[in-house]
């Protein structure tokens, strides 16, 4: 594919604006520049649409409005209303239409405004998109991309703040990615668009305005590969989504206290990169598993089980520790909201405690 140089709509934020410390190297290298996470998502869609006219975007208010979080921005102006298609408030209908389009020669990207609203479309996601390839004996596949922002921290309360990744990861037939920084937001989405299977891309509302260096070219980040943005010797933090940047910030603070932490960004929940994740845990013998979602039957429960079922168990110097959201809905009041989801201080405290056990 010929690479298209994308302009960032003239709205590239200053490098420092909203930047989450440690989420990625702050300095852009050759072929990169610093843009926001939401600009990176838009750039991926724009480059994919420019390169392949089968790529279409549909969702509520993705057109002139530019998306509820401004992610689609100027795409409607650039590609028109046929390919950047506003829809009624009709999540089941939109996702189902996406499945039908994917079965009929197009590469649809469906944006759901808040990942919570996927509940309205669960039949199409779980019973249709995920299973069609399997149930038809491989005679068809569903190259659908479902983008939806999850996570808390915006004061939007219980129905606009959830982290539902474990539901999707629990469904055979769905690939699930959670980009934690701007470069991955672009690279994983490009890979999702290329992928012949349905991919659920769970973005994070708090990350949209964060910035980082992103390749100008349409560089793919492979689906199925975890990243290790920081290597240490005393413990290994494994995190998803917004928790990756919190772990990196915590790791930087712990370094000053003489505690050296690795940070693993799972990036792809399905297919899960056990080799990278367990390998990084083996290196330190201590695992701190951090997620925003509630603890009970969450994705980190799966990671803990993978450790327990593998040789990694014998290399542990201390019991596995999970640091998760509380098993409650997300409350409205900011102090309550913060209290139910791991913050940087919580990660630091848990890491300190884990580092001295055993």
């Amino acid at each position: 594919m010929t690479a298209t140089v994308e302009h960032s709509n003239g709205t590239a934020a200053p490098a420092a604006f909203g930047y989450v410390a440690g989420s990625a190297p702050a300095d852009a290298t050759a072929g990169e520049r610093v843009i926001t996470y939401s600009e990176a998502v838009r750039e991926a869609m724009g480059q994919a649409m420019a390169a392949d006219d089968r790529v279409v975007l549909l969702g509520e208010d993705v057109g002139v409005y530019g998306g509820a979080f401004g992610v689609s921005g100027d795409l409607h102006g650039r590609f028109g209303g046929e390919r950047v298609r506003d829809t009624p408030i009709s999540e089941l209908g939109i996702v189902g239409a996406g499945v039908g389009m994917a079965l009929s020669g197009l590469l649809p990207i469906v944006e759901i405004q808040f990942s919570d609203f996927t509940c309205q479309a669960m039949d199409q996601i779980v019973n249709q998109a995920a299973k069609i390839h399997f149930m038809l004996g491989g005679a068809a596949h569903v190259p659908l991309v479902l983008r939806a922002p999850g996570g808390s921290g915006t004061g939007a309360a219980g129905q606009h703040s959830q982290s539902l990744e474990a539901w999707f990861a629990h469904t055979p037939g769905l690939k699930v990615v959670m980009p934690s920084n701007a470069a991955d937001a672009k690279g994983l989405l490009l890979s999702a668009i290329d992928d012949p299977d349905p991919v659920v891309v769970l973005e994070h509302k708090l990350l949209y305005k964060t910035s980082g260096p992103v390749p100008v070219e349409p560089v793919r980040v492979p689906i199925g590969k975890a990243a290790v943005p920081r290597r240490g010797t005393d413990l290994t933090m494994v995190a998803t989504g917004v928790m990756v940047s919190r772990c990196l910030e915590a790791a930087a603070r712990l370094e000053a206290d003489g505690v050296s932490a690795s940070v693993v960004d799972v990036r792809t929940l399905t297919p899960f990169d056990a080799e990278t994740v367990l390998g990084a845990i083996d290196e330190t013998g201590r695992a701190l598993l951090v997620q925003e979602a509630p603890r009970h039957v969450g994705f980190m429960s799966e990671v803990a089980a993978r450790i327990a079922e593998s040789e990694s168990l014998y290399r542990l110097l201390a019991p596995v520790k999970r640091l998760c959201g509380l098993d409650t809905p997300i409350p409205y009041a900011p102090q309550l909201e913060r209290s139910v989801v791991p913050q940087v201080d919580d990660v630091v405290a848990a890491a300190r405690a884990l580092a001295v056990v055993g």
Partner: protein
Amino acid sequence: MTELAEAPAASDAGAADPRWAREALLTMYRIRRFEEAVDDLFARGMMHGTMHLSIGQEASATGVCAALAEGDLIASTHRGHGHCIAKGADLLPMMAELLAKDSGYCRGRGGSMHIADVAKGNLGANGIVGGGIPIAVGSALAQKLRGTGAVVVCFFGDGATNEGAFHEAANLAAIWQLPVVLVCENNKYGMSFSTEKSMHVATVAERAAAYGFPGVRVDGNDVEAVFAAATEAVARARSGGGPTLLETMTYRWKGHSKSDKNLYRTREEIEQWRADDPIADFEAKILDAGSLSVEDLEAVRTQARDEVRDAVRRSMQAPDADPRAFLADPAAAVFAAPLGSHVAGAPAVEPHGLGTALDATEESK
């Protein structure tokens, strides 16, 4: 773009046209004999699972699919054997699927509720009531955006029109004026719950008014009437006139599925509908019209019977779906690209979705 074959004009078709009459009758007999064979194999303990038979509803599937051109698509339901046959599927891989064979359409992974011949333009049967309707509408949007000229038909039952999926999909089809025909096969019952109890409107067809497109009710046991109404709806869709809701009034002779004890309907009601046999009615019309002889009709019956017998016999001899092969790499069955994309060593799979036919269309542009 490939030119779509012209569907026959309604005026040329019907009992009086020997070719059309023979073809329609053969399709209806294929469906009936296939369903009877399935019923029999199940009763004899030779078939696994459950199934939803469409005996009594043959004219609806046949009349609608006869109105379609090559390249047009359908989406089907849990009661989908008839749709699949009417859209041109082979009986052998259908029966093989039901008999849990590796040579089945779904390699034993789908069974009765997911049988589809994708290459013939079947987007899939569906085990979820209403599940196929948004998919059909999305496919119709793809046809419109790609300019293929193809029309998508979505079959569903009366029960599906109480699902949100129906209403969301109907609205999308309307606002985007998509080339789709929504075919509601009204057999009076959603499992045991009758339409009199499940809706507070008299007909399903009138629900179309809420979305601003035509709703038409037709005798679903009259294959000529179904064909004529479907032809008009397909022509409207193909010419950019948008969707139609076509309600075909019919009746399933058998229970909803294998668990049905027929506690919700009377023997008299069933007998009354069985007297309105879509196949017998059409045969009488053919003989009235004089287009085919009694011997011709017998030849059609024999052909359908032999095709189904052959499908059963050859399926029985085919190798079973093999758990060892399946378990050797389950992810390969679940995903088109199990390792994910752009991972070293992962085989490239083009993300083109359904249909060599569709992609051939695209490439020839």
